[in-house]
């Protein structure tokens, strides 16, 4: 790839600049210099992490499991307790006390010189921070869904493409063999001509009512946690449970779009386009601050005639997972290594040399690191991530408006519906704005 050399040069220049200007010797600790017969320094990927809550820490551990291939040097979180725990994890691994900590991602970005960054934040922060990270020319491992709105997603896709960075979405099911196998059989016509797909995602659960306003815990920077979202008083809901509040997430639907819809698109060859019609209904809580749909059921039609129904799993006979239906059979895949077909013989089929071989990865985090080195596209690149969450977000708009939505997947606009078009973006609370790319 043409940019491989320039990329490595950039990294080297960055390291020199850091050493020269900021005088931060920890950035190239002795272990990274290749002592003791370990990897040469040019192969050690220097990483940081933004968002070190449960998913962020889980991703950091997955990278650290790659034994010495990456080195975390800095972490950033708006919760001082998360930050402390993440620093301890990094320092323990690095056997030093050098991991730098930040409560404000702007300082993190201004000070740090990284090869790559792992980002796991509430969805309403993705538009700004993914785009800014790409503008820094850091390679990004970013959690799904990649955006809260279509507009955020478009900005992120542009930033990733324009800056030519390596992007890996946390859609790790792509690196599991059953999902890969199912998608590869479907795309090679082993269930005949694909007609219809079902994506079963989790049901929503119980609400918590409306808890009283309470004092913000001293370790939490609530203003920064809210960021571009509308200001609301703190009511004990921040970590994890943000995904049940529409200001920050679309609920199980958008959380899981990056898994079973992503896999559906992969096998159907729809990962670079979108539906043309979306229609359906949601079921919403009656009481309390959790306001995402607890049930959802919508049908997407594609220009090639394929239909995809997305619903909470209890509404499907097949339950959770992706099911592709062709004119001669079906294939179902789900977590736990599940793969089933209308005829078990379909699963024995060999894929010939001249047929389509989908990208193969055995380990999602290793694949990212390999691609950071090789400058090749990772298994879960930005556009498919955007197209997967678009299905969820367009479904959300269809349910919110109670209308059939007509979508132009090339121009990426809603046709003939001003009110619905407004739901393609959410205004940002000042001073926050989407970065220019």
């Amino acid at each position, binding site marked *: 790839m043409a940019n491989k050399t320039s990329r490595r040069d950039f990294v080297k220049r960055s390291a020199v600049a850091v050493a020269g200007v900021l005088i931060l010797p920890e950035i190239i600790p002795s272990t990274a210099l290749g002592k003791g017969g370990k990897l040469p320094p040019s192969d050690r990927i220097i990483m940081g992490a933004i968002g070190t809550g449960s998913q962020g820490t889980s991703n950091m551990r997955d990278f650290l499991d790659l034994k010495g291939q990456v080195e975390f040097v800095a972490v950033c979180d708006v919760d001082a307790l998360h930050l402390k725990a993440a620093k301890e994890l990094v320092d323990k691994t690095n056997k030093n006390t050098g991991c730098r900590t930040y409560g404000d991602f702007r300082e993190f970005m201004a000070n740090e010189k990284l090869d790559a960054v792992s980002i796991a934040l509430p969805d309403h922060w993705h538009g700004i921070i993914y785009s800014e990270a790409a503008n820094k020319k850091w390679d990004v491992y970013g959690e799904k869904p990649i955006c809260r709105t279509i507009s955020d997603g478009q900005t992120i896709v542009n930033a990733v493409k324009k800056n030519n960075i390596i992007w890996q979405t946390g859609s790790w099911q792509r690196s599991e063999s059953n999902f890969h196998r199912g998608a590869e059989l479907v795309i090679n016509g082993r269930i005949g001509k694909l007609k219809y797909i079902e994506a079963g995602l989790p*049901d*929503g*659960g*119980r*609400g918590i*009512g*409306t808890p*009283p*306003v309470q004092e913000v815990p001293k370790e939490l920077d609530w203003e920064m946690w809210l960021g571009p979202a*509308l*200001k609301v*008083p703190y*009511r004990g809901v921040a970590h994890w449970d943000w995904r049940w509040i529409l200001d920050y997430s679309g609920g199980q639907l958008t959380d899981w779009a990056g898994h079973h819809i992503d896999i559906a698109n992969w096998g159907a060859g729809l990962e670079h386009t979108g539906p043309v019609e979306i229609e359906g*209904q*949601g*079921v*919403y*809580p*009656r*009481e*309390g*601050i*959790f*306001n995402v749909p*607890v*049930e959802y059921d919508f049908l997407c039609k594609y220009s090639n005639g394929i239909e995809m129904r997305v619903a*909470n799993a*209890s*509404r499907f*006979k097949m*339950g959770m997972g992706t099911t592709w239906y062709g004119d001669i059979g079906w294939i179902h895949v789900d977590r736990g290594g599940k793969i089933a077909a209308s005829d078990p013989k379909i699963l024995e089929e060999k894929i010939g040399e001249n047929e389509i071989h989908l990208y193969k990865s055995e380990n999602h985090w290793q694949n990212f690191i390999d691609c950071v080195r090789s400058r090749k596209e990772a298994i879960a690149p930005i556009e498919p991530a955007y197209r997967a969450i678009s299905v969820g977000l367009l479904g959300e708009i269809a*349910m*919110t*408006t*109670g*209308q059939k939505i007509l979508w132009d997947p090339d121009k990426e606009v809603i046709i003939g*519906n*001003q*009110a*619905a*078009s*407004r*739901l393609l*973006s*959410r*205004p940002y*609370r*000042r001073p926050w704005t989407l970065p220019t790319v």
Partner: protein
Amino acid sequence: MKRQLLNILLIAGLIAIVTSCNTKSSYKTLIITGRNTSNWKESSSVLKQILDGSGLFSCEIATNPKSAGDTSSFEPDFSKYKLVVIDYNVDSWSEKTKTAFLDFVRNGGGVIVYQGASSSFPDWKEYNEICGLGGWGNRSEKDGPYVYYRNNELVTDSSAGIAGSYGKLSEYEVRVRNLDHPVTRGLPVRWMHGYDVLYARLRGPAKNMEILATAYSDTAGGGSGRNEPVLMAITYGKGRIFHTTMGILGEGGGPAVHCAGFIVTLQRGAEWAVTGNVTQAVPNDFPNAAGIVLRPDYKEITLEDDFANIVNYEISKSTKYLTDLQARIRKASGDAKTLLKYEKMMVSVLKNSEATIDSKKLILRELSWMGTDYCIASIKELVKNEELKHEAEFALERLNVEK
């Protein structure tokens, strides 16, 4: 004064018309009660309120027997009715009444088997076929299998054992097993039901019976550990039977019968039993997995209720009037006339100096996407208000999306 009088007369006239329409088109219904093991005086009145409240039924209540043990005088003329609701579980009827009832069902009459009614008449074979499943009254394996769900599989279990039990009373989650049946079409697949008894280990002939919904009888509360049927659809001859095991009566009705899920499934089940179809729309307040919804007066809240209460909204208060409005907006499906009507009512909240800040914040969020030019001037006014500035700016930015 004159105008007020005119208004009153107009309203009175409208009510008269509506009432007469209802009477004309409603299905005559007989609720059979009396000497039930539960609080039958109140339960029959609740059932009447619920069914009459749908506008589809007009209920009469038959009490039997007048004195203990004497059922000989109980001879209702079933042919006058489209629907018979059984809220009764004690003494046997006369052979003549039994035959008349069976003829009514065989010839296409609708039946509702309500809660404890399935424990009636253990020795009357045909009645047990009408109920599908029953309990108590020395029923056992001789009366038919247990029928329930294990995970997603229907189980018919003929093992020996008692019929009828229940664990600790609780709120419980109902799981709809068939979303294509007229009674359950359009309902959430999972919904929370108000504090109630959950019958378990029912057994019976289960002929021509479909389980529409189940609930898990939790072993932690002494339940069966099975997904027990709570709503069933049965056919007998030409007749259709809707069987609900839900709805224990508490103080002043109580959460089991105030539950919008109980009320609405009863109304829908009754219509299906009479006509084989359901024309009633699923109301906005049907509960779902997020939590129970109670209707203490058995009525759905109105648009006027929504706005009368939204103006007082404060964080920590019930959100039901706002979520009800949101549901109305979704149901309008983009109909400009309906949405403008709502928009005007929403703008009147923005202009209302008595309305709370929190109510205005919520209204501004809705208007941000569905508002028209009508709302813009009022929103601009609110930019000057320090407490509403962000929400007003948010709304204006979105509304100007195409400028």
